[in-house]
């Protein structure tokens, strides 16, 4: 049973990751190319000649990297790497999702398995994507100082943890309310969920490393494409995980 769920999560995660990769390729890659063109133009202008365009922060930076010539991995491979990244991301989160699903099943949430799969996928999107995104939104290349990557990554991980913990607190609180009215349980759960989320949004440091002059429309378009990629992933994952479960049930009879 658990093995079946885990394998289902890994495979469905891979599939949903490739679907999200397809969306990201169509909706996001043009914005990445635009941002890299701006980054290289700025670097070329800063160095005085266009021959070798070093990253303006490259000297001694731990996350030193390049996009153009001289990069360890060229742009065509990076575009293919998009599918590798979204596919492997899907495998990793799909496996963890499946084990969480195995634990929740019959204990928390809808009694119907397909409904639980969809509700859990929607909750995961909110907890590990939307809540971190609203505090630390995705950035295209050319935005973000490589010197602060470690701190920003840590803050991002903290927001993911806050999202997951807040959902757990909200659900646990709603289950402890003894009144039968659904609205009262929802209200208590909602408040207990929102308090830690809003506290983290307010208390954690703000990150704003958008270079002056970076086009606002490009930043917006990139962020919508990034959020869309995650939305496509979790929608596809929830639907396919539910569907795979129903198909397996139908086969067994």
């Amino acid at each position, binding site marked *: 049973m*658990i093995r079946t769920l885990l394998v289902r999560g890994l495979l469905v995660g891979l599939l949903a990751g490739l679907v999200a990769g397809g969306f990201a390729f169509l909706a*996001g890659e043009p914005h990445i190319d635009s941002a890299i063109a701006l980054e290289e133009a700025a670097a070329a202008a800063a160095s005085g000649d266009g021959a070798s365009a070093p990253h303006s922060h490259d000297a001694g930076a731990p*996350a030193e990297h390049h996009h153009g010539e001289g990069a360890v*991995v060229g742009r065509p491979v990076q575009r293919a790497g998009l599918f590798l*990244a979204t596919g492997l991301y899907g495998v990793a989160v799909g496996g963890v999702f499946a084990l969480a699903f195995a634990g929740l099943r019959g204990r928390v949430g809808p009694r119907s398995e397909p409904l639980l799969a969809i509700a859990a996928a929607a909750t995961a999107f909110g907890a590990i994507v939307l809540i971190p995104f609203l505090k630390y939104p*995705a950035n295209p290349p050319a935005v*973000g100082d490589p010197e602060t*990557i470690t701190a920003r990554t840590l803050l991002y991980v903290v927001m993911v943890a806050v999202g997951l913990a807040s959902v757990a607190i909200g659900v646990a609180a709603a289950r402890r309310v003894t009144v039968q009215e659904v609205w009262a349980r929802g209200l208590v759960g909602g408040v207990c969920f929102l308090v830690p989320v809003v506290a983290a949004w307010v208390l954690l440091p703000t990150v704003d490393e958008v270079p002056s002059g970076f086009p606002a429309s490009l930043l917006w378009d*990139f962020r919508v*494409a990034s959020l869309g990629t995650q939305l496509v992933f979790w929608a596809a994952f929830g639907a396919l995980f539910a569907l795979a479960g129903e198909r397996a049930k139908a086969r067994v009879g």
Partner: protein
Amino acid sequence: MSGLSTSANPIPLHRLARWLLAVPVLMLLAYLVLMDNGAISQTGTFLHELMHDGRHLLGVPCH
């Protein structure tokens, strides 16, 4: 809702426990895909650059 299957009994937690050993492995995979800049993989910026577009579009801080 009649066509939808419902879950019967919860899976006992002691049966789930040993499967949770997979979680650190999966988290390591997620770390290598989303965040590694050489610290654990010891490949320098190779993973960073290979996963570059995916990191940006999945919304993780990249650089």
